[in-house]
């Protein structure tokens, strides 16, 4: 779903034949439903790609479009329109789910821009690159040590012992990692602003910073999840 339509190429509406450039779900001229666009998720909502979104506006636009696309409204329409109402609804749902969450939205925009994140660079031959892990060594050490502590605690739990010292250090660690996660989230938001308001050069820089922040965030959120699980068990 990452194909970006060339908006310079107009598409003719199947019904009124008036050309429209917008990757729109409804013809701006005759208001008839259109087949799912090849545009990005932002265009589904009629907005330019950006990171700092008005979530209330997004939600009300989602509800408005959902109602307009509802298959019940196409009960007496032609076969094509019936199919498109289903397909457009599915597209709208995917778009909304992706854009409403700040992290998936950021990941999506980065993918759209061809930035290398997550699965995209997985499996690639990374040799010859400057920094194969891209995660600071001290974070790696910390992640590893905390995982060891977590495992110890799980084993102690299984043996029905309670290790007070261990539990205290885990609670301490959770606090610390929560704090680090918040800091990463804050840094991400700062980069959103840079990207949304910046020119091409600033955007490029913001993109690579965001890729690194997301990598770091993945470790931290896994850790917070595991610590919370173990403490709560």
């Amino acid at each position: 779903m990452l194909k970006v339509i060339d908006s310079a190429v107009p598409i003719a509406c199947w019904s009124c034949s008036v050309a429209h450039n917008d990757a729109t779900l409804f013809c701006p001229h005759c208001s008839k439903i259109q087949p799912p666009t090849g545009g990005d998720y932002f265009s589904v909502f009629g907005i330019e790609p950006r990171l700092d979104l008005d979530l209330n506006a997004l939600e009300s636009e989602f509800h408005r479009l959902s109602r307009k696309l509802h298959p019940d409204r196409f009960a007496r329409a032609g076969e094509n329109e019936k199919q498109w109402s289903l397909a457009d609804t599915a597209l709208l749902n995917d778009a909304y789910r992706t854009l409403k969450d700040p992290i998936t939205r950021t990941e999506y925009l980065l993918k759209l821009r061809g930035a290398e994140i997550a699965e995209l660079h997985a499996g690639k031959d990374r040799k010859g690159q400057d920094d194969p892990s891209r995660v600071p060594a001290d974070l790696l050490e910390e992640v590893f040590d905390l995982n060891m502590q977590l495992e110890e605690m799980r084993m102690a739990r299984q043996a029905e012992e309670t290790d007070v010292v261990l539990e205290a250090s885990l609670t301490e660690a959770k606090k610390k990692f929560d704090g680090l996660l918040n800091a990463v989230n804050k840094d991400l938001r700062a980069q959103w602003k840079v990207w949304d308001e910046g020119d091409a050069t600033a955007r490029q820089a913001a993109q690579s910073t965001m890729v690194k922040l997301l990598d770091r965030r993945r470790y931290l959120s896994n850790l917070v999840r595991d610590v919370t699980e173990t403490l709560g068990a």
Partner: protein
Amino acid sequence: MAYSDRVIDHYNNPRNVGTLDKASTEVGTGLVGAPECGDVMRLQIRVNPETQVIEEAKFKTFGCGSAIASSSLATEWIKGRTVEDALGIKNTDIVKELSLPPVKIHCSVLAEDAIRAAIGDWKKKNSVAETAPAAVHTAQ
């Protein structure tokens, strides 16, 4: 996605899980991570200073089944090999042996990185001339 039988075997009966004395000059430690999934892998080797043969290899991995299987297999393969010989192990060999699907290839890359990092650490400790790219050290 289903794991292959080889992966399940290594996952259920991981070989060489454990720790070697990090402070020993005969021991090299590699700690690497895969940011795409948040996995961390530590691989350690004990090298015979006379023969340069890896006599012992241990690992500890926090991650998915494929990451555990890749590191388990890596320790099996490097044991009994010379340091130089072990550097010849490629992630693609691990992919083949474990029939890893494309989305899990990075697990094998991680295992190869871990071998290189451990050997790099051992070489550094023993002032052996560096042949592996220096970049490997950043993962320690």
